[in-house]
């Protein structure tokens, strides 16, 4: 699987003439995790939507997104191979757990047997063996969140976006699930962008942090500057204007 | 109000009410002036076929006149088929509603009249009560007293006379057919350019009757009720042979038929067919004058004569506003109303009055009527054939449905 880095170049998002994000450039290397933080209204979710290709038409956007060296800005969402995990698990209630996972699986393991085997394997990895036939509504919050991540990963994305996926979980679960997500993302070598307002998430990510202020300004924080000093190979977020 | 005065007032009111009821019934049997007085302020619901806008406009004019002259409010309830009104009165009788019925006046003739008379659904006899009935040409038009071989016995008042004729577009048709046999040849030569309304529409039924009269071995049988099944089958066999031969060459290959004569007239105007069937010889002129047909429309009749009849108005036995209905029926037979009815600018339906016997000013109303571009003179209209007994038509219509409504 060709995994490369996720690059944002000079991304500007404007809503009704006012810039929400102005001139943001950012590179996330493979297996790396960049956290984007900011108060509500600072455009965090819009940024993810822009990368996914599902930005509301009310926004005006400029800038480019490159993934593994290829330009994906003009592509429709389904062709971008960018996986996204939301706050709500959004497991389809009309499908069972296994069917939800099968939904995420690409056509390539064809035939029911092959696909079922692949899904079972994923469930075992997530400590959910035997849950395939269950109705998602009967699972606990943490279990659903894990299935949601599995579904996203089964689709073999080349980058992973996380839109505050831990916010709805209990504090106790949060830690476990965070580690689950970060471990899997790193294991598959995916450049990961995490959006959150919880500083604990940023700390656990232990990667560069970009802070978005309201009205589009953004700056790199001290943690990031320190990180860049430690690991010269990690590209930095540049504050522009 | 003190108790005694109140009781007194109630007593007076009661007495007056009883007197009014008694005198009301008394009045119904007395003469014309009393009827007119009673009719004032009444609302008359006239159930009449509403498929022709010119007739509707004429009825609206009647409403204005009776409102102005007699204080009667006329409401035209437009029917798609007179049978609906018959059904309603029947239903009311079956439900025991012998007074205050929903219908006060019906435009009627033929099978529907026979059905109502048989079931005792009519109020009357009324013809004798109406002064203008004396003006009717009963001698020259015996069908004002005998409706489709059924004697009216005064239960319906004549209104107008009709005669089958055919309208064609002279710009598209040079030589229209002059007999039913010629019609078949013409249809073969011009496939898809002719049709007829499906029975039980009255024009469609009359077209079938026209074929029956021409193809039946003994047309005299038609003036009496159907004797038995065998005779019926034998007598109508040529009719079905004719139709089987005709249908493949008709509009839409005889699989669909227009729902009424007016629907077919629209087809003529749209150019989908070349000939349509009409019941009023002056209708074509009237339609041209009202921009409903092209100026090249003309009328023709069959050499052997075409069927004609008289149409009437009748009053249901349980009508709420009987006096108002009588006033309207009388007005319909007045020279003013008959002349306007015959005027092609409004309708073009022939009068039932004996014009020659009218006083000079009223005769002038008729003499001055314009003839119209597409009109035929009375001589050109040819002989009038009599309507068959209703029982023939009921059976022919049923048989037609069985054969052609799949």
């Amino acid at each position, binding site marked *: 699987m060709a995994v490369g880095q996720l690059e944002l170049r000079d991304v500007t998002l404007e809503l009704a003439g006012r810039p929400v994000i102005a001139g943001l450039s950012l590179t996330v290397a493979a297996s790396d995790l960049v956290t984007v933080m900011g108060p509500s209204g600072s455009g965090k979710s819009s940024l993810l939507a822009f990368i*996914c290709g*599902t930005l509301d*038409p009310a926004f005006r956007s400029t800038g480019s997104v490159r993934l593994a060296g290829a330009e994906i800005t003009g592509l*429709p969402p*389904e062709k971008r191979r960018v*996986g*996204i995990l939301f706050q709500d698990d*959004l497991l*389809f209630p*009309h*499908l069972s757990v296994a*069917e939800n996972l099968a*939904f995420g699986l690409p*056509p*390539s393991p*064809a035939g029911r047997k092959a696909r079922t085997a692949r899904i079972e394997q994923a469930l075992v990895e997530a400590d959910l063996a035997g849950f395939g036939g269950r109705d998602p509504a009967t699972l606990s919050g943490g279990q659903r969140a894990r299935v949601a991540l599995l*579904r*996203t990963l089964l*689709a073999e994305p080349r980058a992973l976006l996380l839109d505050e996926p831990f916010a709805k979980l209990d504090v106790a679960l949060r830690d476990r699930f965070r580690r689950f997500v970060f471990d899997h993302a790193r294991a598959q070598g995916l450049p990961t962008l995490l959006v959150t307002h919880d500083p604990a998430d940023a700390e656990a990510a232990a990667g560069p942090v970009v802070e978005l202020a309201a009205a589009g300004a953004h700056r790199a924080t001290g943690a990031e500057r320190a990180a860049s000093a430690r690991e010269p190979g990690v590209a930095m977020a540049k504050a522009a204007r | 109000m003190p108790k005694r005065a109140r009781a007194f007032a109630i007593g007076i009111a009661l007495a007056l009410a009883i007197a009014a009821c008694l005198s009301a019934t008394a009045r119904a049997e007395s003469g014309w002036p009393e009827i007119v007085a009673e009719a004032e302020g009444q609302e008359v*619901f006239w159930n009449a076929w*509403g*498929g022709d*806008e*010119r007739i509707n*406009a004429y009825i*609206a004019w009647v*409403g204005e006149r009776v409102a102005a002259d007699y204080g009667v409010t006329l409401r035209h*309830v*437009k*029917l798609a088929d007179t*049978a609906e009104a018959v*059904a*309603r009165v*029947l*239903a009311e009788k079956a*439900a*025991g509603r012998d007074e205050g019925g*929903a*219908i006060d006046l019906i435009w009627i003739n033929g099978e529907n009249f026979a*059905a109502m008379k048989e079931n005792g659904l009519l109020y009357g006899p009324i013809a004798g009560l109406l002064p203008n009935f004396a003006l009717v040409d009963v001698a020259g038009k015996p069908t004002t007293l005998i409706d489709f071989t059924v004697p009216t016995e005064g239960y319906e008042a004549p209104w107008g006379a009709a005669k089958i004729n055919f309208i064609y577009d002279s710009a598209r048709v040079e030589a229209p057919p002059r007999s039913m046999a010629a019609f078949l040849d013409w249809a073969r030569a011009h*496939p*898809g350019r002719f049709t007829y309304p499906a029975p039980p529409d009255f024009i469609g039924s009359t077209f079938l009757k026209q074929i029956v009269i021409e193809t039946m071995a003994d047309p005299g049988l038609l003036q009496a009720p159907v004797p038995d099944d065998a005779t019926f089958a034998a007598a109508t066999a040529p009719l079905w042979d004719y139709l089987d031969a005709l249908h493949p060459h008709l509009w839409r290959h005889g*699989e*669909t038929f227009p*729902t*009424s004569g*007016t*629907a077919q007239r629209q*087809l003529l*105007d*749209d*150019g*989908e067919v070349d000939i349509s069937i009409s019941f009023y010889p002056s209708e074509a002129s009237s339609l041209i004058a009202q*921009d*409903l047909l092209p100026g090249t429309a003309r009328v023709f009749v069959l050499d052997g004569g075409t069927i004609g009849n008289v149409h009437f108005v009748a009053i249901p036995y349980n009508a709420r506003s009987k006096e108002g209905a009588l006033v309207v029926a009388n007005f319909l037979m007045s020279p003013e109303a008959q002349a306007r009815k015959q005027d092609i600018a409004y309708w073009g339906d022939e009068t039932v009055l004996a014009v020659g016997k009218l006083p000079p000013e009223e005769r002038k109303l008729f003499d001055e009527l314009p003839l119209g571009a597409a009109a035929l003179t009375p001589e050109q209209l040819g002989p009038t054939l009599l309507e068959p007994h209703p029982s023939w038509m009921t059976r022919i219509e049923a048989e037609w*449905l069985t*054969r*052609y*409504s*799949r």
Partner: protein
Amino acid sequence: MADALQPVNLAPPAAAGRSLLGYAPALTLALFLLPIAAGLAGTWLPAFGYLPVLGRTELSLGPWRDLAAYPGLGGSLRLTLISGVLATLVSLALTIAFLAACHGTRLFARLRRLLAPLLAVPHAALAIGFAFLAAPSGWLVRLASPWATGWDLPPDIATLQDPYGLALAGGLVLKETPFLLLMSLAALDQAQARERLAVARSLGYGPVAAWLKTVLPAIYPQIRLPIYAVLAFSLSVVDMAIILAPATPPPLAVQIFRWFNDPDLSMRLVAAAGAGLQLLLVIAAILAWRALEIAIAYFGRFWLTAGRRGGGGRVAALGAGAGMLAVFVLAGGSLAALALWSLARRWQYPSAVPDSWTLDNWARQGDGLVWITGTTALLALVSALLALALVLACLENEQRRRLHPGGFALWLLYTPLLVPQVAFLFGAQILAVVAGIDGTWPALVWSHLLFVLPYVFLALADPYRALDERYTRSALCLGACADKVFWRVKLPMLLRPVLFALAIGVAVSVAQYLPTMFAGSGRFVTLTTEAVSLSGGADRRVMGVYGFLQALLPLAAFAAALAVPAWLYRERRALSWRG
């Protein structure tokens, strides 16, 4: 913080006894289930030979035998089934295709705004206009002839009143597609469609496949009842069938109506049997559809989980967009045809527009038209207002008692829309005759109320329930009694949905044909009954006048529903914006 508040007791104090409001649901149900129940009984008993007013008191199968022996019954059934099922399938397919392929596009937003006016047009008016559009000598052919087609005379092709009922199906599609679209949009609002689409697309699914696989299963249960209503309507419509379907033989519902009006009273029994057959037909169709749903749900799982992503959806978008646009254009064209005819003096084939114009058609109608329009408008207003009062009472009662009506209540509400009108109106008429009220205003209003009520309820229920209940709580805490809260807080805030529901009620009442014919006993003439009885005639100019007026009344109601809140709340931005 809100959770810390104790739930406020909205029910009146026990000492006052059960408030009047509590009777509202029972009253509403009685008002419309009673006529239907009585109507069904009054129709099924004669079907088995029991009609005491005619002296028939023995139960027998005679009417059913007569029904089976009637010439053309097979043709009627074939016609009914083909047109009814086809119309429903096409409407549903178009709606789903449009939603799946065109959501989020500009065409979608534009057509969405035109939905309400289109739905307001009564079906009889639409049918009359469409008949002129689709006829072989109709407007569509006239626009293209003879320069494109070479047809100097109209071709002899049955595009109208054809033996398979395709013209009727076409007319039905024009009316039903916007209805299904509206119900789907309402369901979409509650289905988290955007989130699901985002997830599916991020997993690599094309837009159409994503919508079909993730959103459709969510909204289908919400639109199931409207689909059944559409199916029932298509199979049992009378006024559109009179205009668009052939007459020999006609569709079953029209044939039944004719039998009911036959002077031969014994045909009433056959008519009752026919009405029973019509009901069975609708039930069978709905059951068959349900079976199809189950089959599709079962086989659909394999398709859902096979993982095929689907394409970019551009061809689908073009096709679905074109199809939906065609529906709107044809419907608009039908209305335009009515308007043009009402102003025409002479319009011959093959002119594309009238050859000469006049205002006479309108001027000549005069008094009669005023009376008829007045009757129609008054009837519509009274039924709609009554329905509104009942619905508001029921909804308010539901909120005060904190009830949560289940799915069964929804089925009950839909009953007048699922049972074919012709199958119970005859029995209801007998009920009215026996009660002595047939042909009077109360019977007429009641018969319209039957059909107006479900639509008003459907239109008002969601907005009413969606109103943030914290407004109510705050008002109560400020010392207002429950009634005052209703009149001074809830109603003003819900003015727009309330007026909208009222407009819908007006539109439904104006469109009614059979109820006016049955309950009115011929004493009441509305624009619709007039338009249908004129539709067989040959003066399209007058048809245009009546048809156009018929469409105008509901449109005026909708315009008022938009204008009144906009004006009333011109200083209140939150209430005057589109809700």
